[in-house]
């Protein structure tokens, strides 16, 4: 993102109004076109924005979708506290389904105890969809995040295995979303498809949206591994001969502890974060997700397997 020449702006400006209104329009179409849609809530900033948009879209009625959290149980405790607070603050129903449940059922088999659980979320999500009979799941994915996402539709059909089939996507013309599903199919809906990371941050600032404290700079024990700062936690212990350091860091995304890394930062306030994001020279995922770095096509493979 080139955001060098961008300053935070108030919410009433046109660029903002245009993307906010688009997201609200999509959320209202979702409420109308599906019998039982869920809002996938990870505790991250993008899903916090969607919850906020949903509350604006339907005010004074409550958010018509339950928040669904697929818990890897490899979450930072701040994120779990934030999740519960958010549901309370917006008066939303919260459903949590845990990866441990899938492990106990034997539907998720971990290769190693300490491996990243992110790729396995897909299984638990599909089980939750089946159990609670959701016909649509609202997600916070953005097209600017990653190359594979650039071709994603706003209403995106998943087959009965939860797979995205990029070759047979429905054409999406104007703002006329086709919400019809055949048996076994499920919809993923992405209301902030057209937002950039800078848009998300500016919106969070303008609307005073709460975020987990992890997003703001704090002192944390980390170790540097091939240019990436890895937080020292019980799940990600030091390796022999490594020396930990206390660094001022913040997270740019939240996820499985074993694969989510902070960046060095002193941005403690929203204004400071905005400034940092605006000057950001590293793409969001490149900086913080070890599991995506493994391969350029990792995201697409994961999506084919049903996550998002």
């Amino acid at each position, binding site marked *: *993102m*080139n*955001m060098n*020449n*961008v*300053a935070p*702006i108030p919410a009433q*400006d*046109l*660029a*903002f*109004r*245009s*993307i906010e*209104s*688009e997201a*609200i*329009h999509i959320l*209202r*179409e979702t409420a*109308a076109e599906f019998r039982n849609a869920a809002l996938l809530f990870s505790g991250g900033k993008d899903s916090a924005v969607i919850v906020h948009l949903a509350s*604006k*879209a*339907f*005010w*004074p*009625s*409550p958010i018509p979708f339950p928040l669904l959290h697929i818990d890897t149980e490899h979450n930072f405790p701040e994120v779990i506290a934030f999740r519960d607070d958010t549901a309370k603050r917006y008066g939303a129903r919260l459903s949590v389904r845990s990866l441990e449940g899938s492990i106990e059922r034997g539907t998720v088999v971990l290769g190693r105890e300490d491996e990243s659980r992110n790729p396995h979320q897909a299984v638990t999500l599909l089980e939750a969809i089946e159990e609670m009979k959701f016909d649509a799941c609202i997600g916070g994915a953005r*097209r*600017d995040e990653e*190359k*594979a996402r*650039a*071709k994603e539709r706003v209403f995106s059909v998943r087959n009965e295995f939860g797979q995205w089939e*990029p*070759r047979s996507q*429905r*054409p*999406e*013309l*104007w*703002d*006329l*979303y*086709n919400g*019809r*599903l*055949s048996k076994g199919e499920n919809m993923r809906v992405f209301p902030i*498809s*057209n937002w*950039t990371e800078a848009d998300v941050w*500016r919106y969070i600032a303008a609307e005073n949206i709460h975020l987990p404290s992890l997003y703001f700079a704090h002192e944390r024990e980390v170790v540097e591994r091939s240019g990436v700062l890895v937080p020292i936690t019980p799940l990600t212990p030091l390796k022999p001969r490594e020396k930990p350091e206390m660094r001022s860091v913040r997270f740019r995304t939240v996820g499985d502890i074993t694969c989510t890394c902070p960046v060095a930062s002193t941005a403690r306030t929203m204004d400071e974060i905005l400034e940092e994001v605006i000057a950001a*020279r*590293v*793409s969001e995922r*490149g*900086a913080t997700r070890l599991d995506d770095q493994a391969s350029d*096509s990792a995201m*697409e*493979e994961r999506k084919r397997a049903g996550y998002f």
Partner: protein
Amino acid sequence: MSDTNFLRAPLRVTTAGSVDDGKSTLIGRLLYDLDAVPIDQRQALERDMERKGRTIPDFALLTDGLLAEREQGITVDVAYRYFASTKRKFIIADVPGHEQYTRNMATGASRADAAVTLIDARRGVTVQTRRHLCISALLRVRTQIIAVNKMDLIGHDLRRFAAIRDEVADFSQRLGRPIPTAVPISALAGENVVHKSDQMQWYDGPPLLDLLDSAPGESFRLELPLRMPVQGVNRPQTTEHHDFRGYMGRIESGAMEVGQKISIYPAGLTTTITGIYVGSTQLQRADAPTSVTITVADELDVTRGDLIGDPANPPQVARKLAADLIWLDRAPLDLRRPYLIKHGARTHQAKVETLDHLLDITTLAEIEAEGQLATNEIGRVALRLGTDVSFDTYEANRATGALVMIDPATNATVAGGIIRGASA
């Protein structure tokens, strides 16, 4: 620092060209010259250059997304890209050039404020160029720009450029559309893309980016009469908001004010606006493209799919429509079968009564239909709907003049449609 860039709504741009005209290179070049390539991707480009021993980055690497297409080396689906200049934000629908994907062109153009058509200076105007100009014309893309690329390969020859520019101008006039602006560029060398080229002193126009920076965006919506499809009725029935009854929708065109008289179509009932809300914030006035919830003075029977409009400038109401369908599905139109039509926030039962003629996608001339409307063809049809529809012609208002057709058996989106008017 300037904040004016985000004061304007993003400009939605669609790009198209034939395979190898240099579209990926152009978009990559734009991102690169605007300094919009993140460091990690920039490094990946440099590593690739080293590996292949090249001196200019392979910009296509920045934009070619899906595994499947990387294997085949072609882009097969519309991809969306985001970047900002110092003036505004852009949303680019990057449409693949492969012939069979005309439907992608329609997808990209359906939402676009501006279209950039790429032409290889050596090859000149091709069938694909005409196809793109026709679709942009049909879908009423406001700003049409022609980028004549690879000028470096023809010695930056003015005459060649002028010949292409004139041919396009002539063609556009025959389509009844304004003459597009043409700009000579080299995407690879970065000439006249973001920076002006000193290789083409004879060109006194601005570089491509300046043309995009100054293109009118969605502001024209404000000049059209008020239209707001009702997406839903908001009835909280809580103790605090016991009697609240709001209508939710996005103002697609025009503006509204508290105290204003509005009508609800197709029934045509008239009432007065008593409240306009965005979230819990109450507004005195709102305009396109704001999503709002409104309350009105009278208890009316309003449901999802109704259209709120200005009684002084009402929409049309009909049961039968004349429309042009851009056929997208693999299975051709079947005149015996029922279809669904999504228009605004309402889904109608529909049948195609007649297929009158096809439009030649490279000239927009009428051609005989011979009973078939197949993938990537455009046909003029008469539609009969199960219920009254309130609409404007597409020409008058994109938001209320567009529709999509759905096959209820497969649930596929089989066609995009442009309403020409009521049908006898």
